[in-house]
């Protein structure tokens, strides 16, 4: 399997793991091990001074794993930049999963604020991996703004609905100048394999593993699916993704340039 390179850093694993919703830190740590992931996402929250504030990083911050703090909970670029600076301080890394979703019902990323925040954070020296809609035009704009990858969604966060955006993912992958990480909505290992077969560079999985009956076994299953999908892609599938292109329904006559 070819190595994945993001911002000059090599990864052997193409499975990124989210740490939300595990029933315990011990199971999370076992799942991380079973997945053989080298990129793990984390969030931040306001501390409750009355809580028993354990050191959860002890379960995650192990050699060989790149921490990828997210900006979940932010609603606009300004809040995301604040969260990014806090996470750089807390986690000691300038890598960042930028996610701005102002609407709690569908948790869909705000494209305008995400692009704006990407521009600001790249200038501040962050390695920005923006979570975004599976919008090929937006993905190009994010890459032009200096994003290290794009992370288009397969389906809304936590829904396990699979590759609902597949046709758009095909376009994004075809046109990509940075690695494409399919994030959110992947429900079962076959979804992850399918994403890899069409040429995604990696997938990010959380809920499908953390709420599985046996999260550790499921992490192992996803590892195999991602490897199989990538190997299949590199082997050159006999069936290529159906290619198509838009057919204009309005005249494309040049009324702007004579």
């Amino acid at each position, binding site marked *: 399997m070819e190595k994945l390179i993001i911002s000059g850093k090599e990864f052997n694993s193409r499975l990124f793991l989210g740490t*939300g919703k595990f029933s315990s830190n011990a199971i999370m740590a076992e799942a991380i091990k079973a997945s053989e992931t080298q990129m793990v996402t984390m969030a931040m929250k306001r*501390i409750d*001074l009355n809580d028993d504030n*354990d050191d*959860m*990083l002890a379960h995650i911050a192990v050699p060989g794993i790149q921490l990828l703090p997210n900006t*979940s909970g932010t609603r606009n670029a300004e809040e995301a930049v604040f969260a990014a600076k806090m*996470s750089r301080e807390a986690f000691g890394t300038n890598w960042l999963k930028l996610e701005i979703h102002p609407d709690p019902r569908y948790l869909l990323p705000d494209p305008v604020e995400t692009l704006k925040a990407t521009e600001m954070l790249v200038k501040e020296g962050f390695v920005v991996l923006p979570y975004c809609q599976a919008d090929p035009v937006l993905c190009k704009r994010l890459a032009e703004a200096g994003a290290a990858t794009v992370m288009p969604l397969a389906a809304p966060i*936590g829904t396990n609905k699979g590759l609902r955006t597949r046709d758009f993912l095909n376009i994004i992958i075809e046109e990509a100048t940075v690695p494409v990480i399919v994030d959110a909505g992947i429900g079962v290992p076959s979804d992850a394999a399918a994403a890899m077969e069409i040429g995604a560079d990696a997938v990010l999985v959380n809920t499908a593993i953390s709420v599985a009956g046996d999260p550790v076994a499921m992490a192992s299953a996803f590892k195999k699916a991602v490897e199989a999908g990538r190997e299949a892609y590199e082997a050159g599938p006999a069936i290529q993704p159906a290619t198509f292109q838009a057919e204009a329904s309005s005249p494309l006559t040049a009324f702007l340039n004579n």
Partner: protein
Amino acid sequence: MNVKINNETANLNEGTTVATLAGSRNLPERGIAIAINNEMVPRGEWAVRKICDGDDIVILKAFCGG
């Protein structure tokens, strides 16, 4: 003096620094960031940064998330 810590009112002694505040609470060793009035205070400045009356302090910690 009165300040806000994560939206709750707290009373601190005059001259309290960020480092004293952090030391007086049961904070984890790692995965913590502190901001005053929406400005992150780097850990290297905790010992010298004095907290002022009315400051709005936010303490964040690492948490699980995807």
